[in-house]
């Protein structure tokens, strides 16, 4: 065999190996979480808030964190959606192809996307201190909304760009305004993509710990008002793993399993939803 064919074979083997390595890591992560978390996962874990002495191994569950996470990520996603949709629609149907401003906005969004969540947390914290706010559900929701904003807008922007130009031109030619085009044509055509963008941002929000660490705090109770602190699943995992008691660490693993299942469900759900909503689009 010639040298170059040997090279080819070696390269192929290396590529398959690295590919297997990555797939294996994913499998290993999921396996770890399931194997470690499943034994500790009981019905009480899912349906009760921590009882007295929970962090020493006594009874109770992580309902506070589950509900807190859903509140935080749900609220954050709702606020982010409110802000994202106008931005994405503006970028998609109000600007010209080579608009300078659109370029600047997209660059800013890409930079924002890369900013570490701990920096969002620190920023939110300084603002809250300046306003005299305590760690609360509201603070957590607002910071998560900012964190999710770039993810959501960029994901929406990507799908809105895929809309054929002719579709918009047809609407405009029939006398629709740009607003009517945006609301009735573009959003309907891209509904699956928009739904995916929202769920993507929700998944990112529910899994993020560093930003809510400062801003939402942690509590054993389920918040009943926006101004109360709220627990979250990632922090429940983190705090429980940090204790020296094996029983409590076990529950940390269980919380990690709950979180993983939630995130995977959201991810798979978005695929299913995208397929379902696709029927409103003009093919």
């Amino acid at each position, binding site marked *: 065999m010639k040298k170059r064919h040997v090279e080819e074979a070696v390269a192929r083997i290396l590529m398959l*190996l690295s*590919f297997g390595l990555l797939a294996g890591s994913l499998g290993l992560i999921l396996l770890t979480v399931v194997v470690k978390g499943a034994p500790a996962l009981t019905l009480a874990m899912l349906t009760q808030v921590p009882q007295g002495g929970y962090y020493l191994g006594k009874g109770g569950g992580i309902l506070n964190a589950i509900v807190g996470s859903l509140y935080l990520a749900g609220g954050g996603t709702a606020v982010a959606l409110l802000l994202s949709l*106008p931005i994405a629609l*503006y970028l998609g149907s109000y600007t010209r192809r080579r608009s300078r401003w659109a370029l600047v906005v997209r660059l*800013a969004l*890409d930079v924002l996307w890369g900013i570490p969540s701990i920096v969002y947390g620190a*920023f939110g914290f300084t603002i809250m201190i300046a306003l005299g706010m305590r760690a609360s559900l509201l603070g957590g929701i607002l910071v998560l909304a900012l964190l999710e904003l*770039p993810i959501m807008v960029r994901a929406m922007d990507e799908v809105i760009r895929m809309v054929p130009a002719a579709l918009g031109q047809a609407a405009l030619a029939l006398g629709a305004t740009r607003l009517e085009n945006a609301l009735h044509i573009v959003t309907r055509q891209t509904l699956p993509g928009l739904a995916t963008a929202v769920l993507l941002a929700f998944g990112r929000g529910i899994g*993020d710990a560093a930003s809510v660490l400062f801003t939402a705090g942690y509590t054993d109770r389920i918040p009943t008002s926006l101004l109360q602190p709220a627990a979250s699943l990632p922090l429940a995992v983190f705090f429980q793993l940090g204790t020296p008691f094996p029983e409590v660490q076990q529950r940390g693993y269980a919380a990690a399993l709950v979180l993983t299942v939630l*995130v995977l469900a959201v991810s798979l759900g978005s695929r299913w939803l995208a397929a379902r909503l696709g029927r409103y689009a003009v093919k």
Partner: protein
Amino acid sequence: MWARREAARQLAADPPQATPVLSRSRRARDRWAGRLFLGATVLPLALLVAMSIALLARTWPILQARPIWHLLTGQTWRPLQGEFGFRPFIIGTAWVTAVAMAVAIPPCLLSAVYLVEYARPITRAVVKPLLDLLAGIPSVVYGVWGVVVVVPWVKNALLPTIGAWLGFIPLFAPTNPSGFSVLAGGIVLAVMVAPFIIAVSYEVLDSVPNGLREASLAVGATRWQTVQHAVLPQSAPGIVAGIVLGASRALGETMAVLMVVGNVARTPTSIFDPAYPLTALIANNYGEMLSIPLYDSALLGAALMLLGIVVLFNSASTLVLHRVTGRWAA
């Protein structure tokens, strides 16, 4: 005759109005919505500016109290004594990020090349969602995996082997038996940023025109030679940009790293040493920072540093990627 004249008279008195295609209210609504939407697009830029200003304002007191050079190169971190040396943390962040990139880059690039150049369409269709899945796993779950699998692996497998064979090189000296180390943090981070680097490299490689490949194959080059001599040189700037993006992800990661890296405020010299990255510093101390003078200022200074580095890295690499692929990185 009379009827016709009457009709003409009526027409003259009350000429038919052409129904406007665009009624005034619809046009007004369009204009106002346009203004509102335009206003919303200011938000991302405003957020960036607000973040920088807020963090800078809170860092200001410590910049006034200590020369910046002392802060950046100071070795000791004793907030109670008013000593704020960031050097161990900055170096710690650099080490963990460097190890993560060293671990991540080869398999990621090989996988991306495989996906673009070798894989069948069906493989790609399966792998893409898998990558999204991997990217969507919360960082705290990666942390759990790190604590349960990676740290023991480093402790029981890598430390005895690498430490014994290559231990004479300071970089691999078996200095710390616990396994909570730069290496553990690097491995966890490598897996975390892998989907990201692969996705960007995939885009870049995919944007190389097919004619280039065909020309290379037509003169008898093997596929790998084509990759080496035609595809990779063409896509090098984009791939570098993707790696820089990945690195900026890695250095900003908090929870997963915090859980496995050991958090000892000393400058590491070996990959088995524990480290204390900037992100972990902020996350670990937020609770106590308000009670000690200048402490909060120092910690928010750490956040400002992270912000500065990431903004620099990201804007540079995003612009490069825009040039290379003709579109924006996803």
